[in-house]
């Protein structure tokens, strides 16, 4: 950067000299210091410190170096394995629905000429409100005895469900009807976890709609019209023009929503905690990985073990993201990168 100045245009050189003389560089670093200090203390340092914490025994304060003992303990922790399975259920039960519903509603909303802003306003509303408040409202809506959801089912002659209080797997009734006897793990997520998934999709739907709408707006009008003139039906335009051109949006949302689902905490915590200590109720069937880490950290004060778990969860999320890029990105159609 410094030696190459000989080939630079004279104007730029004089600019730079003025700049350096008047301390542009110094001012720039002064401007960066506040942000840099905060990032260093609360973003970069914690990554290193988490590794350190995970290699030690803690009980509020440090109790000594234990090597990889915390990591070895994870291998034998069946509860964490269960939490991971529940996390996978949660991710698979939310992300695809958010994408499909978000895309479908955005497609309709894109065609609507009147009142689209009003619909968008309402769809986006859950996402701006606090997870704690809406979780409380949903606990009431899904209440097993008095909830509005059961009243709605009653109108259609369906008997009441216990929603967030139901620990049995949703596939259980099916097995009973077929007269099969299968182990617990094959029963699928509990109805309680499915209820949490419904609330999650409800919460994030608006964001997906808005981002899909932005993706749709970016598709040039001529492209659709050209396909139309060539005799393509609406379905064909959708299948061969719109969906391929939306793949960058879909891929972006898939990656971001998967990461977000793995990190989801507040909504699940308030939906599934009873009293001050019963987290992930009923019977721990809604205890996803983030809640499990929180339980070890905040209730048991096993900071070393929780730090190891947090790091492992982060690595799993990273691995999944890398996998998504490796497997799916080549199927994404980027208009600009083609030529």
């Amino acid at each position: 950067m410094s030696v190459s100045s000989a080939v630079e245009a004279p104007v730029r050189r004089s600019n730079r000299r003025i700049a350096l003389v008047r301390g542009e560089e110094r001012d720039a670093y002064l401007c960066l210091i506040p942000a840099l200090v905060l990032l260093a203390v609360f973003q970069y340092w914690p990554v290193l410190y988490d590794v350190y914490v995970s290699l030690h025994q803690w009980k509020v304060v440090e109790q000594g170096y234990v090597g990889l003992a915390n990591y070895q303990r994870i291998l034998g922790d069946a509860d964490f394995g269960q939490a991971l399975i529940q996390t996978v259920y949660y991710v698979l039960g939310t992300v695809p629905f958010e994408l499909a519903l978000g895309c479908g509603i955005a497609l309709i909303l894109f065609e609507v000429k009147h009142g689209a802003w009003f619909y968008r306003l309402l769809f986006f509303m859950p996402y701006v409100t606090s997870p704690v408040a809406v979780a409380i409202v949903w606990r009431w809506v899904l209440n097993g005895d008095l909830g509005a959801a059961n009243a709605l089912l009653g109108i259609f002659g369906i008997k009441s469900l216990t929603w967030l209080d139901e620990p049995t797997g949703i596939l259980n009734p099916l097995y009973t009807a077929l007269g099969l006897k299968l182990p617990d793990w094959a029963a699928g997520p509990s109805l309680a976890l499915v209820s949490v998934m419904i609330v999650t999709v409800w919460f994030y739907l608006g964001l997906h709609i808005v981002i899909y709408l932005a993706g749709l707006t970016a598709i040039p009008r001529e492209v659709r019209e050209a396909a139309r003139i060539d005799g393509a039906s609406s379905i064909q335009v959708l299948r061969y023009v719109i969906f391929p051109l939306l793949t960058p949006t879909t891929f972006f949302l898939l990656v971001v929503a998967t990461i977000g689902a793995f990190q989801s905490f507040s909504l699940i915590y308030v939906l599934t905690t009873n009293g001050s200590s019963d987290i992930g109720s009923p019977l721990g069937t809604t205890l996803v990985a983030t809640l499990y880490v929180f339980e070890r950290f905040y209730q048991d004060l096993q900071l070393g073990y929780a730090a190891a778990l947090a790091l492992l969860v982060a690595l799993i999320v990273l691995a999944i993201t890398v996998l998504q890029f490796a497997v799916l990105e080549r199927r994404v159609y980027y208009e600009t990168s083609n030529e």
Partner: protein
Amino acid sequence: MKTGLRALGYLALTVAVLAVAFPFLWMLDSSVKSQLEATLFPPSVWPQQWHVENYAAAWNAAPFGRYFLNSGIVSALTALILTGTSALAGYAFGTLRFRGRSTVFALFLASLFVPPEVTLIPNFLTINFLRWQNTYAALILPNAVGMFSILLLRQAFRGLPRELAEAASLDGCSRWSYLWRIGLPLVKPMLTVVALLGFLRAWNDFLWPLVVTSDESMRTVQVGLSVFVLDASVQYPLLMAAACFVVAPILVFYLVAQRQFVTSLATTGLKG
């Protein structure tokens, strides 16, 4: 055919939007019912009697005044400091030229890849080490910097013509007074977006305030509300009333500044 399809589209949208809005309507509806009426099943659709005093009862059932004061202070200061740190960094990256700019920028960008679950425990320990438990500093400072905000303001500053800064400098205007008198006013729309986002995040934040506050007088509204709900003795109409006044400030903000909210939240992606 075409009109039929359009009508079907409106129908589908209306059903979907009702499903999305229903919990909010139900929250309002239940918040004014008497405890007795709330135990009816199937529930009454329209409250038989309006018990507006539920709001006062909920407000007094826990120190919500204090919670609101805390959340107001924390959210406003978070928004202010976040906007300040982001504007300064955005100005440096967007307007100023200095050696090592791309390296430092890459270092800043790396913060986007730090997973929040990993920072929680170390940050908790840092706060303990500083003896900052139950302080506003602990509630504010970790959220007072954000790479997305910096990126938004960097873009805004890059959008300003380079000649502007040069002309100002030739006229003897220092870089600081250029930033204060010319640069910042010109990027004001983006400053508003960053401040709104910062306020919203801080107001709705739950996990971090939960972890760093143990003293009731330092709780934010979200932590206070969660304690309120976990206390099994509180009746549902009061809980709904409390949920109403906790989401009300944000919903008012949202309705007033809809466009800024939607675009800024959509550009910064899923978080929280």
